[in-house]
């Protein structure tokens, strides 16, 4: 019998296969599975429900038009959608064109977040790791991630050296990774 993780991944694979054959029902299922997460990310970045809804539409329509952009062999659909959503929301917030095509977004991630229960557990762990970070590191990471600030902008705002800001951001991401490797 498949574990819930395996069921989640297998379910994602079946949905993406459906999208590739133009199955509108598969699109509805993908939306039902991930729209809460996508909307939450967009809303956190943009702080505006209308703008967040627009990003939500754009992300799922992009997936509908280019289902092949997601490589099911390399990561989870939920994680891929989270990255695409955050990037598009930041582009909207900063009023700039996208830097990366969705086909070029390839990622590897340890936890499977296909199911709501898996996502809830992973979310709790992430909040725990972030809560334990030194304030300066947490702040740098959040400014970079949720506000799309460059390391230069963060350095100016915090008065910290550029190299320190860059190292803190990377160390914060590595700390998250390690929490899910144990």
């Amino acid at each position: 019998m498949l574990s819930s993780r395996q069921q989640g991944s297998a379910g994602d694979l079946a949905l993406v296969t459906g999208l590739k054959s133009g199955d509108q029902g598969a699109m509805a299922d993908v939306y039902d599975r991930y729209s809460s997460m996508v909307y939450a990310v967009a809303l956190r970045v943009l702080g505006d429900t209308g703008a967040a809804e627009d990003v939500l539409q754009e992300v799922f329509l992009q997936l509908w038009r280019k289902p092949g952009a997601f490589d099911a062999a390399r990561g989870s659909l939920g994680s891929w959608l989270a990255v695409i959503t955050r990037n598009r929301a930041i582009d909207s917030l900063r009023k700039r064109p996208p830097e990366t095509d969705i086909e070029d977004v390839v990622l590897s991630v340890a936890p499977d977040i296909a199911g709501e229960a898996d996502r809830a557990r992973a979310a709790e762990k992430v909040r725990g790791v972030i809560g334990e970070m030194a304030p300066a590191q947490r702040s740098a990471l959040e400014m970079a991630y949720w506000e799309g600030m460059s390391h230069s902008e963060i350095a100016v705002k915090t008065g910290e050296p550029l190299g320190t800001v860059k190292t803190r951001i990377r160390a914060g991401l590595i700390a998250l990774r390690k929490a899910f490797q144990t």
Partner: protein
Amino acid sequence: MSEHEQFADDLALYALDALRGEDRARVDVHLAACAACRLELERLRGDTALLALSAAGPRPPQRARQRLLDAVAREARVAEALSQITRKDETPSRAWPAGPGWWGWLAWAVSATLVLAFALSSQRANMELREQLVDASSQVAKNARELEELRKIAAPILDPETQRVTLVSATAPPQPQGKAFYLRNRSSLVFLANNMPALPAQKAYELWLIPVSGAPIPAGVFKPDARGSASVVNPPLPAGVEAKAFAITVENETGAMTPTMPIVMMGSGE
């Protein structure tokens, strides 16, 4: 510091889509040649996905679901309609059924009408073609005049007899300098360089076009003359590539298909 450590912090910014301009172009060049860093970038992107989980909020409004599914259904209908038009064009026409008597006369009359209409149409088309030929000849003459004008403009830039002068600050020694003129819609590139250091025998500089996405593209191999000047004119390039930056590396004089680190010069759009 190893080369990987040099890029380690930048990869995290890259994963956050926070690296732009020359900084991003520098990392792009490295990623094209380093599988280890490409893998680390994938892992860092995965780490950013974990950050997304910390967002909590209300569910999207119910109308958003229907709005999306309506948009998906519309696109599916358009795609199906286009597909049907294509299939219709490919369907071979059916032969007219033979019919005796009155039907036969009708078929003859229709055929004769069609032949007459075709003849008139051909005559009209013939006249239109003659007019187009006159227009084309006029355009050819105009193109020739423009080409001559362009040759006059390009000659002082490209002729080896041309005296090249680089003006710099009076207090600073001359530095290597390059200028790339790239016209994307014609895949046309002219590159001029000054004050380039001489290279050892069997080595050459290679120019690279760094695209917005994808690996660096070779854009010509050159050696500076005794004065340190060099140029590359219209190297073969893929059509319509959007350039984020240009870079120069030192390669064997036959050139390379992937850049050899380090980059000796680089610049992005002005």
